[in-house]
């Protein structure tokens, strides 16, 4: 009797990309719901526009490159990229911001490098950084948390703002503010002390109104990822401890004029970045030691950019900056192989 041959191992694989991405999406849901609760429906528009344009861009690029479309779309990586981008954007950004962002992420940052697995830079963060540089005006206005809006914004209000490419400045000024990080930085620049600054309404006990709850929800989702072994602890722990330690140092030495470590951890995108963004396996270091170093470097750089740099939120730039160093980190953090010194 004759048989066909193939190569071992013959055992079915235990995991798939799709499964990992799906878990990531699930882990993001608490954050998304908290965001809707705190900041209104704007985020939904971002998500819808981002995800649909990302899928369109992915399909287009796969088609142009002559790659099979279905298996690569159904791996959901484009959806993850789009979702992470959408969550980083201001919730009342005009519609073309998420649209352009999704295309930059998928076309330039991902497919020009060969698509899934080959991109050296985190696509979502590249898109975010490009948008930030290109459209600083639209990218720095954040809506006030619901708690501070006298009568909230309805679904249709937001719809109008998102679609209106030239929003009425007065209306926008009334409902928007800088993010807590941004405000903190601006006010520190005016020689205010942190105590004075934190008495403003957009701040609250831990960090910023609304922001702290969103961060905590992300923390919840992040733990799920750790638990499901989709990510290893090295990056989030490295990043958060890097950020914590450096901000604590400065906080200890100059308490009045530097925000607290807690503020740094919860006041902006640190948690989202630590669990969902810096952990992007494709662009992160791949050795465990390397991942820890990678995380710490991002944490420290985030603090530097936040504190002395031109951008109030440093995560995105820190991530792509350290992305550049990943091959070098990997090169110098080889594991000790069994039987070697």
């Amino acid at each position, binding site marked *: 009797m004759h048989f066909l041959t193939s*190569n071992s191992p013959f055992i079915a694989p235990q995991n798939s990309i799709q499964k990992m991405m799906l878990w990531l999406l699930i882990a993001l849901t608490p954050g998304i719901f908290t965001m809707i609760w705190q900041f209104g429906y704007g985020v939904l528009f971002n998500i819808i526009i981002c995800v649909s344009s990302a899928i369109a861009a992915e399909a287009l690029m796969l088609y142009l*490159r*002559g*790659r*099979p479309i279905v*298996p690569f779309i159904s791996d959901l990586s484009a959806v993850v990229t789009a979702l992470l981008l959408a969550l980083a954007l201001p919730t009342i950004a005009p519609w073309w911001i998420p649209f352009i962002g999704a295309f930059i992420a998928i076309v330039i940052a991902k497919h020009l490098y060969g698509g899934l697995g080959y991109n050296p830079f985190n696509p979502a963060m590249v898109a975010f950084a490009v948008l930030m540089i290109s459209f600083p005006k639209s990218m720095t206005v954040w809506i006030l948390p619901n708690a501070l809006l006298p009568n909230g914004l309805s679904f249709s209000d937001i719809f109008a703002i998102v679609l209106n490419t030239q929003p009425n400045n007065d209306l926008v000024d009334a409902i928007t503010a800088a993010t807590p990080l941004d405000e903190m930085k601006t006010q520190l620049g005016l020689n205010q002390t942190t105590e004075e600054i934190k008495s403003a309404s957009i701040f609250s006990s831990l960090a910023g109104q609304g922001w702290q709850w969103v961060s905590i929800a992300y923390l919840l989702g992040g733990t799920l990822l750790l638990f499901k072994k989709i990510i290893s602890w090295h990056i989030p722990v490295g990043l958060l401890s890097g950020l914590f330690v450096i901000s604590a140092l400065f906080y200890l030495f100059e308490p009045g004029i530097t925000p607290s470590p807690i503020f740094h951890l919860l006041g902006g995108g640190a948690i989202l970045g630590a669990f969902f963004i810096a952990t992007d396996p494709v662009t992160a270091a791949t050795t465990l030691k390397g991942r820890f170093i990678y995380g710490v470097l991002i944490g420290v750089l985030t603090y530097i950019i936040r504190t002395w740099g031109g951008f109030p939120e440093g995560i995105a730039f820190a991530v792509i900056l350290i992305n550049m160093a990943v091959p070098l980190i990997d090169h110098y953090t080889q594991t000790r192989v069994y039987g070697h010194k």
Partner: protein
Amino acid sequence: MSFIILIALFAAFGALLGYAAIRFKVEGNPIVDQIDSVLPQTQCGQCNFPGCRPYAQAIADNKADINQCPPGGDAGIAALADLLGVEPKPLNEENGVEQATLVAVIDEEVCIGCKLCIQACPVDAILGAPKHMHTVIEAECTGCDLCLPPCPVECISMEPIAKTLALWQWDKPDNSQNKAKT
């Protein structure tokens, strides 16, 4: 005029460089050895140089391109490109095409022992005394073909090397899923 000083200074520089050119004169070029070690040493001359080392010399002197050695094939070109830090390019078809390595086999019935093949063989892989049949040491034959033309009775043929388990290679998995369809 004050710039006379400048001109004098520049002239001094020129003299300095002239001196440096003499003082630090470099002879030989160790890169040739490195290039030579990458070449397959078939010594077949298909590169239009009389053997691998002359070709290596020519490459080092920028007088030959890296894509002229058919026995080395694409892998050889890639290794050269890597060594020299240039872009790899396809094999120059004028030099020939890459083939599986063969060995020469002398038909001992027909061989008249004329010694012509021995003179042609660049690596002394053929044994034999005058008027006696000759034989090829298989392990030392590089498959360069050079012994074929001189043989007056055409008793030499090139045969494929037998596949052995020792030189067997596992298949390389192909990622056809990721490749373009066209």
